[in-house]
């Protein structure tokens, strides 16, 4: 049997919970009995910089890094960052992107402008693009930090793992007092895809 590997890129801005997103999903894949590797960079980049986390799972995974043009999914918490890493997407890959704009420092100080045509540019390069208003939903839930779990809920609609695995992975990775809120966020993410 061919060793089919699923490649998922999650990207955003430092502080958005990109790493927690792939932590939870890595737990889900491992609980499903698969080999898992995930890679990211900590330290300097965390301070408001561009963040990318790469997750791979399947029967046997060698490289922790995804080759460009082979990502099955790109999950972007911020649209500029999504476009930045779009060259990782495979021809049949799907993009889940939050229509959220966070100005980087060069834009804030007026050196350059935040591009106005990001979503059209993403749609021009990718066949299947799902725009998820996760950040806005997170604000409605009263906790902007649930954005990542809303995006996870959305992505879960395209993966074949049983929902119970997500629930227990969320419990493992998130402080007890926020679990209930995050389970709600997860469900909201699923609803946002089902409506599309």
């Amino acid at each position, binding site marked *: 049997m061919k060793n089919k590997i699923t490649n998922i890129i999650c990207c955003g801005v430092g502080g958005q919970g990109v790493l927690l997103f792939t932590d939870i999903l890595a737990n889900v894949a491992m609980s499903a009995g698969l080999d898992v590797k995930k890679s990211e960079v*900590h330290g300097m980049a965390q301070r408001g910089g561009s963040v990318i986390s790469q997750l791979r799972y399947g029967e046997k995974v060698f490289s*922790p890094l995804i*080759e460009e043009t082979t990502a099955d999914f790109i999950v972007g918490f911020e649209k500029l960052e999504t476009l930045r890493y779009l*060259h990782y997407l495979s021809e049949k890959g799907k993009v889940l992107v939050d229509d959220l704009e966070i100005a980087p420092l060069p834009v804030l100080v007026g050196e350059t402008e935040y591009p106005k045509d990001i979503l059209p540019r993403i749609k021009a390069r990718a066949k299947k693009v799902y725009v998820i208003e996760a950040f806005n939903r997170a604000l409605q839930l009263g906790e902007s930090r649930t954005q990542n779990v809303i995006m996870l809920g959305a992505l879960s609609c395209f993966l074949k793992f049983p929902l119970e695995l997500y629930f227990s992975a969320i419990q493992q990775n998130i402080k007890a007092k926020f679990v209930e809120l995050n389970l709600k966020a997860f469900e909201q993410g699923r609803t946002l895809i089902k409506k599309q």
Partner: protein
Amino acid sequence: MEIAKTLLSGDEAIARGAWEAGCKVAAAYPGTPSTQILENLANYQDVYCEWSTNEKVALEVALGAALAGVRSLCAMKHVGLNVAADPLFSSAYIGVNAGMVIVTADDPGLHSSQNEQDNRYYGMFAKIPVLTPSDSQEAKDFTKLAFEISEQFDIPVILRITTRIAHSKTVVELQQRAEIADKGYTKNVAKMNLLPQFARKLHANLEERIKKLEAYANNCSINKIIEGKKNVGVIADGVAFQYAREVFPKASFLKLGMVWPFPKALVKEFCRNKKHLYVIEEVDPFLETQIKALGIKVIGKDKLPLIDELNPRIIRNALTEKKINVQPETTLPARPPALCPGCPHAGLFYLLQKKDIIITGDIGCYTLGTYPPHNAMDSCVCMGASITLAHGIEKALKYSKKENDQPTKRVVSVIGDSTFFHMGITGLINAIYNKGNQITVIVDNRTTGMTGHQDHPGTGKTLMGEETTMLNTEDIAKACGVKKVYVIDPYNIKENRTLFREILADPDPAVIVSKRTCALLVSRKPAKKVLADNCIGCKLCLALGCPAISFVNDKAVINSAFCVGCGMCVQLCAKQAIV
């Protein structure tokens, strides 16, 4: 019984491995990507863990513990081993008694470092065995094996990881802690005292140990041949091995886990009768040079880059015909890391950025003061170099010919509190002793910020969570001989502006301790707001470089999700538009 499995980063796996191997003393100075090793090890029972003041100290603490008969570990980032190089070389001569592991976490790709040095060379240079794991399972297994090799051959062992090992998570099988008998301390001057008369003999003894270690490397389980196509052979180590497996799924592999002493016999055996041989390794041609010295022809760094980390695509494009055409967007605004909203350093840099001075910087979050709008850092070299570079620059200016009677520029060094304890103090003593007059700013945010908030001698807490003596940077500056020591709150921009003017005009050396706790460690105050009617769009507030402030339709807007309510921008606004 089913074996417990979990996902661990390489750092977490090394901590687990050290615990399982019965390690009892561990020391480190925080440094990406090695920091999480000690942070995790400190969570296990029965291991004494400490943040040492620097890497030299950490290595010596571990060596002392090993000589006293318990298994010990020290961990550091790659450049940390430069700081610890002095005891590293001596430790090879002296040997250990109980096992000792030195973890070096290299950073190909410079994700969070000042260089891409390849610390496998330290093994060859200092004559210490080097193991290079390729995932988290191996990171744990090799840590345990390193303790055994260390004891068997009476020598410390270097475990060399890279960022992609340290910060990638892979599946790891867990075991329990082994009960290792303590070996106890025995006075043995001929072994532990490097007076030349003893060191000469120890050097001869070291060369004997290295010969035995090479024989071991030729036969050990972590240097293994994976049979594949008979005519294509790949030799690889570390994470490069994993990338190579993706690109050459059918080739024969010689996977090296112990890369020094170099297993010459095993390499010769593997290369025999192979038509195509590739050496795939990150950064320098460490393996390749040694293979070529055996007279074997291989393809390696003639095709693969010497710079940056590898990935499967780079290897595929360099060595195969199935090239991947990558087209990233090229016209996007960059997103460099930035000082956080409410960062006390921003208040300091706001005052420094407009002055006609030379600013030597150091290593920490405050290095980000290099970027616009601050542009307030001329140099960043290595830990502690701000103060010493400033001293050299100041002396050079004093002895340079003056043009047009221009006054000599003042030299200001900027160093963090943790970095000051690490390597700044000796530089400050030197500057005062040698009649320097630089202004040293200690940006004291009461933590080790960039690496994720580790304690240090100024925080009053140890790595194991115990209360301890709190050392104040201002007291130490005074003890170094500085007569004029000022403690300021960087949030008080208006007051500080006057004070800075006075200090710069004063020819005496001074230390300014810019003291305020890191904004990520204190609870937020209510977010500030812009009164749009008052805002004239002058953009004075942008000079703070605060990620919470942007401009929409020529009016300032404060992002309430980011703003921590520090109030620095309120002081900058001439029209009282921020409340």
